[in-house]
């Protein structure tokens, strides 16, 4: 199986889906001739032309709103927000329109569209090229939110998202783009939306995470094995719809749960996971649920020591796991 990078998995999924279905098209800022500022749409313009790889004006609300209109008509648009930080002007279209279209029309109109957005820090992106935005959308029924961590999941989930009948927010951690590589089959496959995956089996502490911090958890687990701490790692992969059974199973496995995400602690998705466990598996717990998350400051600063302080890393995850293990 070929080994490819996380961003190549994005490109391959887009390319193969566009080859498979003529209704699939891409739109966004710089996605065409330039192939995207991260090169996620590299080569698509050459293969599919300006009509299906559309360089839009610099207008996030229109990128989302036009994609909504086209999807309601019956197309399969994949809209790119250049950075998740810039999704805010499109918030009204995504939340008031895309998420509610099916419900408000009593199932007669719906929006099969994907909105891709690179999120997350650790790339010297400062306040406005580093944010995690999932908590802003997680409480909006009608949307699906996918946050893969590996190239295999990226490709399989992006294909599922494009084929899905509802709007999917597909959040790609930009630090993962070239850092994370993995085996990806050449033949067509999909990964179902709404299914978490155990990425490592263990007995002492369960870590629940997604995106870049999932890799920090795996790294921490590998190192802690040498100390005799066995870590169970669950990758949520999709946060809406949430794989509740997998979370509860992973909780029961060890009785100690650490939830890790880069989004801010307060209002972050970890609170939802924690509440789910408390309500459904309280008597399975051997320690209080622990959350490790981005600090409650407005966004990630630019200067390296400040960025480093904000970011999580394997060391911080290791410390938190160790504390839980010793509880």
């Amino acid at each position, binding site marked *: 199986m070929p080994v490819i990078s996380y961003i190549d998995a994005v490109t391959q999924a887009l390319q193969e889906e566009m080859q498979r279905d003529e209704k699939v098209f891409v739109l966004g800022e710089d996605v065409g001739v330039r192939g995207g500022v991260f090169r996620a749409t590299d080569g698509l313009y050459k293969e599919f032309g300006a009509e299906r790889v559309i360089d839009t*004006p610099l207008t996030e*609300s229109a990128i989302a*709103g*036009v994609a*909504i209109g086209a999807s309601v008509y019956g197309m399969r648009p994949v809209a790119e927000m250049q950075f998740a930080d810039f999704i805010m*002007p499109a918030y009204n279209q995504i939340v008031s329109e895309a998420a509610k279209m099916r419900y*408000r029309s009593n199932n007669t109109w719906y929006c099969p569209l994907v909105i891709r957005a690179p999120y997350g820090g650790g790339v010297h992106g400062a306040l406005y090229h580093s944010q995690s935005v999932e908590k802003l959308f997680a409480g909006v029924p*009608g949307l699906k939110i996918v946050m893969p961590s590996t190239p295999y999941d990226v490709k399989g989930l992006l294909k599922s998202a494009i084929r899905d009948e509802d709007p999917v927010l597909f959040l790609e951690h930009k630090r993962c783009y070239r850092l994370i590589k993995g085996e990806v089959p050449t033949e067509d496959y999909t990964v179902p939306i709404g299914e978490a995956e155990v990425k490592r089996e263990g007995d002492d502490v369960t870590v629940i995470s997604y995106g870049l911090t999932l890799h920090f958890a795996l790294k921490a687990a590998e190192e802690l094995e040498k100390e005799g701490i066995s870590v169970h790692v669950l990758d949520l992969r999709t946060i809406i719809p949430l794989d509740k059974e997998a979370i509860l199973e992973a909780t029961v496995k060890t009785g100690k749960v650490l939830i890790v995400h880069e989004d801010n602690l307060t209002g972050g998705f970890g609170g939802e996971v924690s509440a789910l466990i408390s309500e459904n598996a309280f008597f399975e717990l051997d320690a209080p649920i622990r959350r490790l998350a981005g600090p409650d400051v407005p966004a990630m600063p630019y200067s390296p020591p400040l960025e480093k302080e904000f970011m999580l890393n394997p060391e911080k995850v290791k410390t938190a796991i160790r504390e839980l293990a010793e509880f």
Partner: protein
Amino acid sequence: MGSEESVMETSRHEALGLSDDQVLEMYRTMLLARKIDERMWLLNRAGKIPFVISCQGQEATQVGAAFALDREKDWLCPYYRDLGMMLVFGQTAKDQMLSAFARAEEPNSAGRQMPGHYGDKRFRVISGSSPVTTQLLHAVGVALAGKMEKKDFVSLTSFGEGSSNQGDFHEGLNFAGVHNLPVIFMCENNKYAISVPIEKQLAGGSVAARGQGYGMPGISVDGNDPLEVYEAVRDAAARARKGEGPTLIEATAYRLVPHSSDDDDRTYREMGEVEEARKKDSLVQFKKYLEDVGILSTESGAELEREIGHIVDEATEYAEQAPYPDPSETYTHVYAE
């Protein structure tokens, strides 16, 4: 040449290629919209329905525009006042009353949305929301899809003049202009955005003039004249179908009633101003036109009013008796099932 001695002179509607039957149907639809709307206010004041948002004063614009489109293939992204447009495209008085009473059978949303939030797949009307101007971008998206699929339909989206200040207006016009899309942007300027008059809404004083900045014609028409609106929309649709791109139309009329049943317009405008506007009411003016050209008589006009009265009565009675949605419907259709 005076009109008295020129009986052979072509009438305005004939010059537009409209038959006597067609203009009579336009008037009939305008009148139906008005009567439905008036009945809703009565029902609201009687405590029978929670909310009304009106088309009154804008019927000519809505009906004239919709008549100029192809009702078999064109798409609509209307806003919450477009009752007249919906009736032309195929919804009925019964549909409106079912919506007013929030009944399960209501076609826009099965009672999920407030009245006026139109959406009807049968007639290619995309469901709308309450945050204004969002629908413009959907119309642009439909037009983009049509162009990609090499179809020859147009999409028409309508909105108030207040909406011409929203970002989505500017983003939508610009996107359609850049990609030369078959969209008609029709502003129904009724001179008020709830309480705020156009003087406080529109720098430059004109919505139509904003078209120039986005590389499209910006056309001003009398929104009280259904024939003038018809002509402008017909021409815009022809341009769009020929691949000549979008058009912005500003049809100016007047909102004859408060913003909604929860508003009191006496708190921000003189009632004398409303009375003046009523003299230019399209229903009065168009009726006179039809009488002048001999299409409508006092008798046939009265008969039409009676007929429409019956339709509205029947629709009201039907809707009032119709069942509400089952509470379990609260949980359906969040996602594909």
